């Protein structure tokens, strides 16, 4: 198992002349070694080593730089994450914000494991590899808790795919779109885990800073949960899976920096995934975990061995001696620091008792997975790395892993009075809709979704596309049934109302949380955990820090009110390209638990002659809507979101689901009421005949396109009408019309605004992305 490469007599590690260096020399060292640290941080390290009375080795400097990168130690966001999330109740969560992924109770015996992470920077440079390894990485996060992954999800954000006159050296958004989707498809489909949910968005601000947020959900027996910590002295550290190579060196340092045109030259940061190794790795790890052979487990993601060994030991209050020349390598001649910081894919770190080594070997050899024993857990506080007989790193683990904490300056946005200019309603609604529906922001995501396998493993109850085969519409949240002998299900969704967040981070985040909540709720599930993946610009700008703080504050308030725990998360900063920051994107993944999947409610109208109701009060404002965005009108305020009403609706709705009062349901969000009604129609080509008069006194276009409030459109069978109205006593419920066999008709105050049939609207909606993917 050993592959020692000794270069006879030469020392493996070089000393770095930190002591006595002036500021300019420090900066030079930082640039030469691609450390990505600030001058202040270099000075902190200089002081530290001066006190030790020795210069650091190159291994030590690289390890410090990696551990102190924004990506690994969250130095800009840690303080505020703690401030806003540490006071939240855990509710059903068993592990919230503690290990690699969040663990939440599912039933008496089982728990589900969730996590979402960004892979933005790698995907900006090499979209295919970046997106694929994003999927690979998130699978390992779930796996290292001992859980069987059961579903993947992806929220992806692209630039102007339709723009042919983009200048600059950056990759064209269309190329990025096709390759990111390709990467997710090829990795996900080959590894055999269904892709069940997510979102796709297009905006100018993502032109050179695409976002790829990958999420995963898994299921584990409560007594088999494996922690990302070790505390047993004498345990062996095993590195299993793929070999270590030069790919992905400095990935996290790079992810914590701003992209510029020169970034194209930074080649060593790109990793390519290998799902063909991942699949047996999942089996082998789960088998070893089932047999109770594993004491602790951690995946190797951004930060490589350096991060994983450091964090797993620190969490358990122990330390380790690691023999770097025992690591299996892809290529000869790698330097010790390269081995230590490499971010090669498909690797896992396991801690096991020495007496279990033989059994572990049998399992891993059986699955044809390579591994090597790389070190031993010892007592103490200093982490030691050896290369042959030479000590190449000896550092206090706490100093190495904890990293600095910054309270950066922040600035909250000023409130402006101007709301928005009410656009002249001089357009023919039908003509407008036919154009509106072909816009990439509003059309179907079918071209993308059809490339993913939604049903492998056979657990998927509600897929991302629902309705008649080959003519489906979008679902709100997907539902899976993770256990063979239980009817309980999980509803999963992910997305962001980033346009609203950009206008007002506080209420925009309420909007985002509300939408995620409604997406889960409409299926009949009770939302019970939140995972956040925050994508922001450069945190050194006070404006961006202000956005971050408001987003966290708003999430915290929402979660307190709706009794939800935030169980895992990820913050991706420095999403900036040549001075342009992205709009703030708090991408929220929400999971709910449903009692009986056979009662799950999907979003497609089921038949003609049923009643259509809108649950929830109308918030007559077009602020932040797709309608205004499409008409190029900027707004400065948002509609309101009422958390009290949401809570009330949620209680009544879950009861109504239990009594099977609702045939189909869809929340009102992007595109407003009309988009909701149309999307419900597409599933089985059923139309609607509705009258908006009773909804409110607002202008017709506001009623049609407003995206505020917490509203759900539902279809109810005539014989259940009275019972339905009774079930929602105390909540604003408006009956607006009936479903038809295909005709569409919409009127307000005796004026007809829309007449046609489903196919007239479905056709443009279906083909919006055809030219780009």
């Amino acid at each position, binding site marked *: 198992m050993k592959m020692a490469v000794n270069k006879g007599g030469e020392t493996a590690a070089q000393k770095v002349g930190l002591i006595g260096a002036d500021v300019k020399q420090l900066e030079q060292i930082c640039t030469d070694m691609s450390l990505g640290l600030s001058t202040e941080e270099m000075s902190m390290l200089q002081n530290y080593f001066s006190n030790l009375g020795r210069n650091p080795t190159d291994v030590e400097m690289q390890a410090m730089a990696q551990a102190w990168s924004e990506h690994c130690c969250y130095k800009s966001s840690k303080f505020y994450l703690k401030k806003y999330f540490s006071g939240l109740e855990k509710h059903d969560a068993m592990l919230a914000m503690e290990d690699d992924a969040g663990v939440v109770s599912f039933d008496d015996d089982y728990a589900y494991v969730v996590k979402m992470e960004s892979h933005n920077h790698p995907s900006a440079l090499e979209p295919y590899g970046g997106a694929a390894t994003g999927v690979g990485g998130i699978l390992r996060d779930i796996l290292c808790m001992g859980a069987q992954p059961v579903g993947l999800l992806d929220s992806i954000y692209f630039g102007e795919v339709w723009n042919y006159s983009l200048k600059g050296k950056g990759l064209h958004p269309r190329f990025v779109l096709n390759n990111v989707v390709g990467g997710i498809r090829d990795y996900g489909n080959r590894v055999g885990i269904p892709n069940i949910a997510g979102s796709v968005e297009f905006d100018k601000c993502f032109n050179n800073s695409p976002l790829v947020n990958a999420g995963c959900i898994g299921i584990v027996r409560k007594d088999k949960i494996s922690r990302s910590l070790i505390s047993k002295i004498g345990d062996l550290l095993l590195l299993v899976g793929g070999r270590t190579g030069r790919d992905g060196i400095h990935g996290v340092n790079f992810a914590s920096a701003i992209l510029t045109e020169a970034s*194209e030259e930074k*080649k060593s940061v790109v990793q390519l995934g290998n799902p063909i190794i991942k699949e047996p790795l999942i089996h082998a790890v789960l088998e070893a975990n089932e047999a109770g052979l594993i004491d602790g487990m951690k995946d190797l993601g951004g930060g490589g061995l350096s991060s994983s060994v450091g964090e797993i030991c620190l969490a358990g209050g122990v330390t380790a001696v690691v023999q770097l020349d025992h690591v299996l390598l892809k*290529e000869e001649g790698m330097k010790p620091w390269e081995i230590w910081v490499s971010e090669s*894919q498909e690797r896992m770190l396991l801690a096991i008792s020495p007496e279990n080594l033989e059994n572990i070997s049998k399992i891993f050899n059986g699955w044809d997975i390579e591994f090597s024993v790389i070190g031993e857990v010892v007592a103490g506080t200093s982490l030691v790395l050896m290369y042959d007989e030479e000590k190449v790193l000896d550092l206090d683990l706490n100093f190495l892993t904890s990293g600095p904490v910054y309270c950066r300056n922040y600035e909250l946005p000023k409130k402006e009075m101007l709301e928005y200019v009410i656009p002249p309603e001089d357009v023919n609604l039908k003509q407008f809709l036919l154009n509106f529906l072909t816009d990439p922001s509003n059309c179907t995501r079918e071209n993308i979704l059809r490339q993913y396998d939604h049903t492998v493993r056979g657990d998927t109850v509600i897929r991302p596309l629902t309705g008649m085969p080959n003519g489906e519409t979008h679902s709100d949240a997907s539902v899976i049934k993770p256990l063979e002998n239980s009817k309980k299900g999980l509803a999963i969704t992910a997305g962001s109302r980033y346009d609203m967040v950009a206008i007002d981070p506080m209420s925009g985040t309420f909007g985002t949380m509300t939408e995620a909540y409604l997406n889960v709720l409409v299926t009949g599930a009770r939302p019970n955990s939140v995972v956040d993946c925050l994508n922001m610009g450069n945190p050194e700008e006070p404006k961006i820090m202000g956005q971050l703080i408001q987003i966290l504050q708003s999430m915290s308030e929402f979660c307190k009110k709706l009794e939800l725990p935030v169980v895992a998360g990820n913050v991706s900063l420095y999403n900036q390209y040549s001075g342009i920051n992205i709009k703030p994107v708090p991408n929220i993944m929400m999971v709910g638990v449903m009692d009986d999947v056979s009662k799950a409610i999907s979003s497609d109208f089921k038949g003609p002659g049923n009643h259509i109701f809108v649950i929830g009060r109308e918030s007559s404002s077009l602020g932040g809507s797709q309608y205004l965005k499409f008409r190029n009108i900027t707004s400065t305020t948002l509609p309101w979101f009422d958390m009290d009403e949401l809570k009330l609706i949620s209680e009544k709705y879950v009861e109504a689901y239990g009594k099977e009062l609702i045939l189909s349901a869809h929340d009102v969000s992007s595109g407003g009421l009309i988009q909701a009604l149309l999307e419900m129609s597409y599933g089985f080509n059923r139309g609607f005949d509705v009258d908006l008069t009773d909804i409110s006194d607002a202008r017709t276009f506001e009623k049609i396109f407003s995206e505020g409030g917490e509203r759900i459109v539902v279809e109810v069978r005539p014989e259940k009408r009275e019972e339905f109205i009774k079930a929602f006593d105390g909540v604003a419920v408006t009956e607006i019309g009936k479903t038809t066999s295909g005709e569409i008709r919409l009127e307000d105050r005796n004026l007809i605004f829309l007449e046609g049939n489903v196919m007239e609207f479905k056709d443009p909606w279906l083909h919006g992305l055809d030219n780009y993917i």
Partner: protein
Amino acid sequence: MPVISVEIKFLPGVEDPEALTIHKNLRLLGYSGIKSIKTSKTYTFDIEVGNSDPKAMVKEISEKLLANPVIQSYTIRE
């Protein structure tokens, strides 16, 4: 009629899953003694007479379209 070919291969250190899988399966089939395998792709250009600098053109094509400089390198052969 000049014939120019371009070989596109992964940069050193970039994972080559296809080659790794072939290597692993050859071992299972009983072929021993293979140290490593690498994949590459070759494009052959049959160029019309009269083109003043075909090599420069192929170089441009390789950089612009065929090779992804982030993970691949190219070699031009005449």
